[in-house]
């Protein structure tokens, strides 16, 4: 029978999207860091013994799950074939907003597009076109996003200055703000956490 600490560590590592330092896990679970390290090692061994297709490794100072190196050929096929190889119109619009309005928060992008953009932003981050570039100094300290050198490279641009000028048909700042405001007032506090359930 697995212990509670063991199961809790599995659960937390499963939903984390970056390596978790053992002292963070220790803090959350209210156990000594040494215990966390011990349990993680036991789990890693257990997965190996059970011949699982994933491994628990310590990387960049933290623990995380990743696919077993043996199975890289399958994962590669999945990456190459199983993923759509084009950005959807929605994703392109999101990327365009980040490009032209950076640094910009998720809530701002969401307000402009009128839909939740969490999933799209995550995809763009995974693809290396968008990164976190800082935090809003205001209350809430929202994460701010910007584009990467890879993005410029793929578009054949030297720098952001070379993005095509928006021209005279762009609605003025006040129109954009009114629009953002309107969308926000429709659904204000939930917008950010909207994807988190009913």
């Amino acid at each position, binding site marked *: 029978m697995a212990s509670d600490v063991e199961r809790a560590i599995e659960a937390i590592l499963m939903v984390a999207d970056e390596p978790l330092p053992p002292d963070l896990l220790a803090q959350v679970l209210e156990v000594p860091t040494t215990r966390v390290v011990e349990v993680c090692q036991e789990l890693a061994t257990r997965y190996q013994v059970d011949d699982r297709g994933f491994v628990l490794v310590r990387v960049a100072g933290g623990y995380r799950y990743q696919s077993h190196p043996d199975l890289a050929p399958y994962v590669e096929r999945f990456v190459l074939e199983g993923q759509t190889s084009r*950005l959807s119109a929605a994703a392109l619009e999101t990327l365009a907003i980040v490009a032209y309005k950076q640094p910009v928060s998720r809530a701002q992008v969401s307000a402009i597009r009128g839909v939740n953009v969490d999933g799209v932003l995550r995809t763009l981050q*995974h693809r290396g076109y968008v990164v976190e570039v800082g935090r809003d100094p205001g209350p809430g300290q929202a994460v701010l996003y910007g584009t990467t050198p890879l993005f410029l490279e793929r578009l054949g641009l030297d720098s952001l200055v070379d993005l095509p000028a*928006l021209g005279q048909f762009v609605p003025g700042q006040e129109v954009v703000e009114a629009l953002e405001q309107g969308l926000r007032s429709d659904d204000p506090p939930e917008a950010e956490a909207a994807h988190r359930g009913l």
Partner: protein
Amino acid sequence: MTTMAYEVATPVFAGPFDLLLHLILREEVEIWEVSLAGIVDAYLAEMQRLEQLDLDVATEFLLIAATLVELKTRRLLPGSDGIDVDEELSLWEERDLLLARLLECKTFKDAAAALLRLAAAAERSHPRRAGMEERFLALTPDLLEGVTPERLRGAFLRAIAPKPVPRVDLDHVAPLRVSVGDAVDELADELPRVGRITFRRLTAGVAQRLEVIVRFLAVLELFKQGLVDLHQGQRFGDISIVWLGPTGAIALDRELVDSYEG
């Protein structure tokens, strides 16, 4: 953005069916005490509490109120022979329609509660969203293939273009300013002078069904306050209204009078 106000913001009742369901089912335990008169009274009282109703909702509330009042009237007014079978049938039809709608509303209310329980259970699990490990990132197809700076600009312009805001076009609705309170005031001014009048004549110049209903509610209000007497020669015949109140200015019990505007 006036259209934003179109959600009913009452704390408890999201609509007229909601309210009616509550009023009827609340009495479930003492079923012999359920009386239509009680429900009509509670319904009208609850309507008074609703401020800032939009026209659609107000109309819906009123139509249901009117149906209830119609049903209630049959008990209030002296029943006699000579029942008009067609009228009788259409009243039962309306009642059954209302019943059917209440049942449907209740069905989805309970379904919604079940969905909420499902969601609450699902919320206890959190999905893995870690995504690709670095070593595979280089393999991922270049999603930006074929995307030119010009296309990016186009996408941005599309994204920030003002979206058409869904707007309820009310231009086709004649401006109505009906409130039961105003109608009561009007009648309290008019009736002492004429003494006796039929409901048909009282509403002869009124084209809108809504306004007729409002006047009807106003008459019932005066009846409740003992200011008029109602007579009906035969069931569903013309109703004659007789003023019982004083002839001078009168103090109406405004507390009881519904005061919203359509």
